[in-house]
């Protein structure tokens, strides 16, 4: 025993002090948890911002004295002002997409799951990995700091279209706020790039014996392909962000033509605002898949484990992730059908966009078939995974409207779009993240979460999100534009109806937000007081469940695990139990192949 420990510590010097173990940790698991917690805190901030938006939209013109006390500069007279409303819209989107979903999905789960699920001791570059988290934290701080600068945070929407975002005269938030936004995003991209390099290298080089690519769990496949997407697309936005900073501060004209803003001549020359849109969406479309793919991976894993069935069509699942990733690079123009881009391009982008629905359909039907004939165990994680399938379908189908340019003319920038992307990449992605946290919490903290509270959290959230986002489709039918502070100027908007719908949405939003406190409570309580978890509480096959809960530094004791089979040998006929971990050699039970590349072992 002593010998083993000794051998171990030769490979990985385990840090002893609290600081090196939990704060400046180079252990991927700790970094993953740091990422997750930071991201959830950011997500909470973004949710509070959405409350403020809903307060205005549901109860326009109503004065809330407490609001003035809370935000003396943003709610004079107790009514949220227009500038802060736009800042809330912008920061809600930015934080949710980049700083919450992307950070939690790629930063959090990649770090926690990749080394454990491929049988590695840690990431390929632990120091870079630590750096990645700290740069991410710096990005968060810079972004949150923008709430306290003159003019407030950026308000040009998360898409930051210039010249609105490049001209300080055009918008309150386009002064300091926009500068900090761009710096925060540049830092975030630096962090993601370091992370992505690490994830890709780790998956390619550090798989344990027997863990062929064809035996990787779908979570790892999803995280691996997400990392490739991020590595290839984020730098483009980095370049664009730097160019926009130059336009703003050094008088270049990449995106900014000659302008007259509020009677003031702003002598830029020849810049093209549409160039930013191309560069932005070249990242930002892959970005929505960067946000959703980890959750798809988590969903696949959680569904299979809790249906006690192999994931249906493993190879098709991998292929469809790859297809989605590939296609996601050539669909960005569907955000720009009415932008003034050459309409010829519209036809091309429509084709690729509607094609991307095919791999999404395959995934959906494969998840359904995974449930078919299963013996479903409704853990909280499982409920969120099933919820993911439901909301993903709801949101995905509306994409078929928006990807078709003639229909998009009418629906573009209306609440239909808000409904679409919240279902397909907001709610779904967050459901995936919740499923992941509930599923892997025992492995992260060695304790179980409270299932009753967890299920209550699910029911309230699942019902609530449909109340919030489903009615927005009808607002979209009515042509109600998004990012409006109020709707009372327009006669084409049926005032009473739209107001009633908005009241329902707002109340649902407050309730769903409050329900998230159950999660926070459950998380904190369980982390310290939850019942102790054993190694494999869900009777799952993947490697991490063979490590202690929580796994020690270096994950595996003296010997790395050896993999003999794919991760989805559930309910194999003739086997003594309804699951066979990947480490079980083929002899006793009938071996189901490796599902991929003919079982070659490295």
């Amino acid at each position: 025993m002593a010998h083993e420990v000794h051998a171990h510590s030769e490979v990985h010097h385990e840090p002893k002090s609290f600081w090196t173990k939990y704060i400046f940790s180079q252990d991927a698991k700790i970094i993953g948890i740091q990422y997750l917690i930071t991201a959830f805190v950011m997500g909470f901030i973004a949710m509070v911002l959405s409350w403020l938006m809903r307060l205005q939209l549901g109860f326009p013109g109503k004065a809330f004295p407490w609001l003035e006390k809370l935000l003396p500069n943003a709610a004079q007279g107790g009514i949220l002002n227009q500038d802060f409303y736009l800042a809330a819209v912008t920061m809600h989107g930015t934080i949710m997409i980049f700083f919450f979903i992307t950070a939690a999905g790629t930063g959090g789960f990649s770090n926690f799951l990749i080394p454990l699920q491929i049988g590695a001791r840690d990431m390929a570059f632990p120091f870079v990995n630590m750096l990645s988290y700290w740069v991410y934290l710096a990005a968060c701080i810079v972004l949150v700091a923008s709430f306290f600068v003159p003019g407030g945070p950026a308000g040009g929407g998360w898409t930051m279209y210039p010249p609105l975002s490049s001209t300080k005269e055009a918008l309150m938030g386009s002064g300091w706020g926009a500068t900090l936004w761009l710096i925060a995003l540049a830092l975030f991209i630096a962090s993601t790039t370091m992370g992505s390099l690490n994830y890709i290298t780790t998956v390619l080089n550090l798989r344990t014996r027997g863990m062929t690519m064809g035996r990787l769990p779908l979570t790892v496949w999803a995280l691996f392909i997400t990392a490739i997407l991020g590595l290839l697309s984020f730098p483009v936005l980095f370049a664009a962000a730097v160019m926009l900073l130059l336009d703003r501060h050094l008088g270049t004209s990449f995106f900014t033509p000659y302008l007259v803003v509020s009677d003031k001549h702003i002598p830029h020359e020849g810049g093209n605002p549409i160039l930013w849109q191309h560069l932005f969406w070249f990242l930002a479309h892959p970005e929505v898949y960067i946000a959703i793919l980890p959750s798809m991976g988590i969903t696949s894993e959680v569904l299979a484990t809790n249906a006690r069935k192999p994931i249906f069509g493993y190879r098709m699942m991998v292929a469809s992730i790859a297809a989605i990733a590939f296609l996601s690079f050539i669909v960005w123009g569907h955000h720009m059908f009415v932008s003034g881009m050459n309409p010829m391009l519209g036809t091309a982008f429509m084709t690729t966009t509607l094609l991307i629905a095919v791999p999404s359909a395959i995934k959906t039907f494969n998840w359904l078939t995974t449930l078919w004939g299963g013996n479903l165990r409704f853990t909280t994680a499982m409920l969120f995974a099933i919820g993911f399938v439901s909301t993903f379908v709801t949101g995905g189908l509306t994409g078929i409207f928006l990807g078709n340019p003639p229909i998009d003319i009418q629906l573009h920038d209306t609440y239909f779009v808000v409904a679409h992307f919240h279902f397909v990449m907001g709610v779904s992605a967050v459901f995936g993240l919740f499923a992941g946290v509930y599923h892997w919490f025992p492995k992260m903290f060695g304790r179980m979460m409270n299932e009753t509270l967890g299920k209550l959290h699910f029911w309230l959230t699942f019902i609530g999100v449909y109340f919030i986002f489903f009615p927005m489709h009808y607002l979209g039918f009515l042509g109600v534009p998004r990012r409006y502070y109020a709707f009372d100027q327009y006669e084409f908007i049926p005032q009473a109806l739209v107001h009633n719908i908005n009241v329902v949405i707002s109340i649902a939003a407050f309730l769903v937000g409050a329900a998230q406190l159950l999660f926070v409570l459950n998380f904190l309580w369980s982390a310290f007081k939850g019942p102790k978890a054993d190694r494999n509480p869900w009777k799952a096959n993947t490697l991490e469940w063979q490590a202690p809960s929580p796994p020690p530094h270096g994950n595996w004791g003296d010997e790395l695990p050896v993999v003999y089979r794919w991760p989805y040998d559930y309910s194999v006929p003739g086997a003594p139990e309804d699951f066979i971990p990947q480490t079980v050699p083929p002899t006793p039970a009938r071996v189901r192949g490796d599902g991929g590349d003919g079982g070659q072992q490295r």
Partner: protein
Amino acid sequence: MPTQKREGRIEGVLLPLLLVILVIVAAVTVAFARHFGWWLRPLASEHGAAIDRLFVITLVITGLVFILVQSLLALFVFRYRGENGRRAIFYPDNPRLEITWTVIPAAILTALILSGGRLWSRIQLTPPPPDAFAVEVWGQQFKWAIRYPGKDGKFGRTDMRLISGDNPLGIDTKDPASKDDIFFPAGEGELHIPVGKPVVVYLRSKDVIHSFYVPQFRVKQDAVPGMVTRVWFVPTKKGTFEIACAELCGQGHYTMRGVLIVEDEEKVREWLAQQSTVADLIP
């Protein structure tokens, strides 16, 4: 967590129930959306009919898929809720089945692509007829400015550098074509266009990106500073319509309303004849 007697007694019933309610509510509300008035604003342009048709076709197709998938989800969750002692079916793949649900969506989507593409090229790739009624609409925080070409049918040259309090659109008065142009500074004019005649709107912006959106016309096109974009349509109904801004343009975005009056061509001409021209307004 060891499996107890029968897990998921509640979840396996409640979740399917919720999904069924969702399907029913969604199906009923969408089917009667027009009846409830939760529908597209009444159509008032020629090309809009085809857009609405494609919209309805897409709605029916996606609606059926929605009902199918959510119902199957509900059914499977209900039917296969966990029982002790039962073992799930080992069913890892079935290439034929998977090819089926690759090919069918692909076929449906191809059909949609084809019809969408054809309509798109009709709306966007066909140039307006040469005799179309032309007007220029400028976005400016947070109202619309308007310019008509005047009797000669030609817009005078403009230059952003010439913009001043007296000359809000930067019209070059040295250009003879500009003398008879009729313009209205942002927020001060009404946009009069003829009914039943092709109307082409040239869109420009002085400051940030705006979007010219008339819901009843099924028209939306961004106005981008530094370039001219174009949209054309045939109004089919007389009356007063609203222009809304559909691209976030700042603090007053939600108040950026314009008024568009569709009337007989003679009336438009009559009204135009009463308006002051550049020669009157710019010294």
